């Protein structure tokens, strides 16, 4: 089957029921989306399908019906995406493992709501777990990115 990932057509030869996460990681060597729980409970595997956030750990490749963007697809011409830049400027990441998923969820949120309130941030980001407790900085980074205009 064919998969459009980060602007490139990729040929995939995997079972239909393999979750997108493992096709990306083990077959296409795209390691940004992370395995955290396997049951859509932590958000580490979040990628965008036609701009909408999906949990790639529970999405079979056969159910992929649109263009996939992973964190590797955010940078343009070696320049960080404004959300990534905000994450850098606020020094959000600690262990960093959940941050690919956090950033992808934040990109989707800011696309839908360019200037979210704290409550809107809490609602949109509630599915993304962080065991290092970087939440206060995630909030700050989303406000910063909103200010910079995503």
């Amino acid at each position, binding site marked *: 089957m064919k998969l459009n990932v980060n602007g490139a057509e990729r040929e995939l030869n*995997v079972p239909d029921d393999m979750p997108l996460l493992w096709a990306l990681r083990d077959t296409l060597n795209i390691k940004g989306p992370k395995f955290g729980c396997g049951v859509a409970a*932590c958000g580490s595997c979040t990628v965008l399908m036609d701009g909408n956030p999906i949990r790639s750990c529970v999405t079979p490749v056969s159910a992929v019906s649109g263009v996939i963007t992973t964190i590797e697809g955010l940078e343009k011409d070696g320049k960080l995406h404004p959300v990534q830049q905000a994450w*850098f400027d606020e020094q959000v*990441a600690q262990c960093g493992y959940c941050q690919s998923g956090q950033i992808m969820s934040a990109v989707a949120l800011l696309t839908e709501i360019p200037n979210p309130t704290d409550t809107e941030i809490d609602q949109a980001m509630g599915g993304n777990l962080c065991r290092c*407790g*970087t939440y206060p900085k995630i909030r700050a980074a989303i406000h910063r990115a909103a200010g910079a205009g995503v």
Partner: protein
Amino acid sequence: MGRIATIARRTFLVGAVAIAGGVAFGYYQFKKPVNNPLKDGLADGEATFNPYVKIASDGKITIIAPRAEMGQGIMTTLAALVAEELEVGLDQVTVEHGPASGAYFNSGVLAENAPYASFEHSMIKDSFRSVMGAMGKIISLQITGGSTSTVDAFEKMRHAGALAREMLKGAAAKELGVDMATLKAERGAIMDPASGKSLTYGALALKAATIEPPSDIKLKDRKDWKLLGKSQPRVDMRAKVTGAPVFGIDVSLPDMVYGTVKMNPRLGGRMKSYDAKAAQAMPAVIKVVEIDCQFGHGLGVIADNTWTAFQAADAITVEWGEAPYPADTKTIMGVIETALNAGGGTALREIGDVSVEFADAPQDRLVEATYSVPFLAHAAMEPMNATAQFKDGKLELWSPNQGPTITRFVCSNMTGLDQDDITVHTTMMGGAFGRRGEMDFSGYATLLAMAADGKPVKVTWTREEDMKHDLYRPAAMAKFKARLGADGIPTALDAASASPSVMRSVVRRNMPSMASAPLGPDKSITDGAFNQPYGIANQSVRGIDVDLMIPVSFWRSVGNSQNAFFHESFMDEIALAAKMDPAQLRLKLMADHPAAAKAVEKVMAMSGWGKERPGHAKGIAFCLSFGSWVAEVVEVTDTADGIRITNVWAVADVGTALDPDNIKAQIISGAIFGLSAAMGQEITFSDGMVEQSNYPDYDAMRIYQTPEFHVEVHENAEDMGGVGEIGTPPAAPALANAIFALTGKRIRTLPLSKEVKFA
């Protein structure tokens, strides 16, 4: 000296690890210079100056930060120690974990294990600490733990930078024919102010590395620091905001195959029989391997991809053997309770005579309480994994681990390979919190690699396997009793804390031959209770080691995580009985320790202590842990959905703050870790198996539950303290005390969600 010598003989790390490591304590071994492990792997044009610094002719400067980067920002702070003296910016260097080597021994972690409060100094106590510290070198203990990385590195890594700088200056002096005292090092170059000439470190490196290092190095005064004491951007931040493949689970090697494990969920139980036909029939499955080792009994699967390995493991049916401990939580807690009630144990603090004080105490002057906390999982975001390759008689491991030399030691014992034939690459870690100080995941990858026909195999655990095969924070119970004086101030404290010993469990797994050796008292059983800066005239704090075979281990702040909850909840109960303000009571008792008192006074001022917003209430707690003095205030309110934590104020005195913003981030991180556990985390057993399996039944604080944080860092304390764990201990008791203030309900058993609902 008698009692000290007895403790020294009996204390775990000196007694057990040293003997198991096959070494005997000797002056020669302590004084002998360490080998530089970087000499073996130098590229063309690359020179090394000491175990921490490599400089290449092309100008690339590499600093080795030999402690596990698991989120705490240690790579950045350690690199800054070297860079400060080397006179380079962090933007000019590459920072790596480096190889497993005894050169990177950690003295701090053993000194921290000395059985005294960190503020107690005397000739005997300090010499005991330095003997313990020296053991770190002798047993090649390269480990990240005990919040000791910066304390341990503070002198030696600045020295490493200064030595390299002076050698570079020496080479430049020869090259320019001038006196080296006239030269200046700046931003990776040596300048001659007289001639205006300048030579880069790259140009000087090969020659400089052959120069005899000077023996008298003077480190910079603090007032001259350019990097230290100031907040630095993290050296790993760009990789982490771009999804770079830096974690163990991201390792990718030519011809790599993928594996997983399915171990007996009755921890330590054996495998009776299994049927793997369905798994072996899957086209992408390569092999099913039996695992039988000190970490567990079960099966490994090797396949073409991780997902198939998971599917195959799921398809195997197994008859598991019995667990070597009681089958359910109620019986397990009963064992702990029985041990607590039986009394005895080891007192690490014995002041005055509590028995005399309690003998004639009137009932209305007595305060008594019993507390209980559950087993806890680490639940780091990156599930356990490691990659291993066994080829041509050599083993290579890529492991997200906190103890590279112990990993090598354990894998050597498991395979019979010489330690010199084992290479350990330490990757970045997606969280660890103590879990990755264990060796099971590296051990299993090693065993699968031995069966993988020379191919590298990446062994990833499912989240369920991770949750059900953790090495848990022990469950614990404690009894506290105080006698109040006429003024309400306690005159006696009699406390006992009972839990299975972490140290004994660690030795059982990693040094099976030492499993029955007498290990002596485990300080962690009473850590956070026996060593607090409260001036109560008569004190007895006993630790009771409960004999239970449930595997337990280090969990962020270890013993402090339970004992601060016991101790600081009890301080609130004393205050209530004495009709005193809980913060004022603490201030009175810590009058001899200005660093503690100033932290409490500051947190009171920041939080507006004593003034409540309508419908809100606050609780306070304090804990001295890992040499740092931390006071926290938690504010809660009741909402239609349940209790909500609205604000947390924290003041931490770390003595010397090397990177203030990173320290603040760690205080918040530690507090959220502690609040997450206090609110709702609990590992329970049924039929010998852990009942929780994934985040839906073992969750942590989410962004919508996260309060506003207000953190200040103090530097009043005389000694430098740790950072990575210190935010955790006061969080649970401050929350429990706040809930008491809000609702009048004193909750003595964690998690709090057993009694109240959180929004």
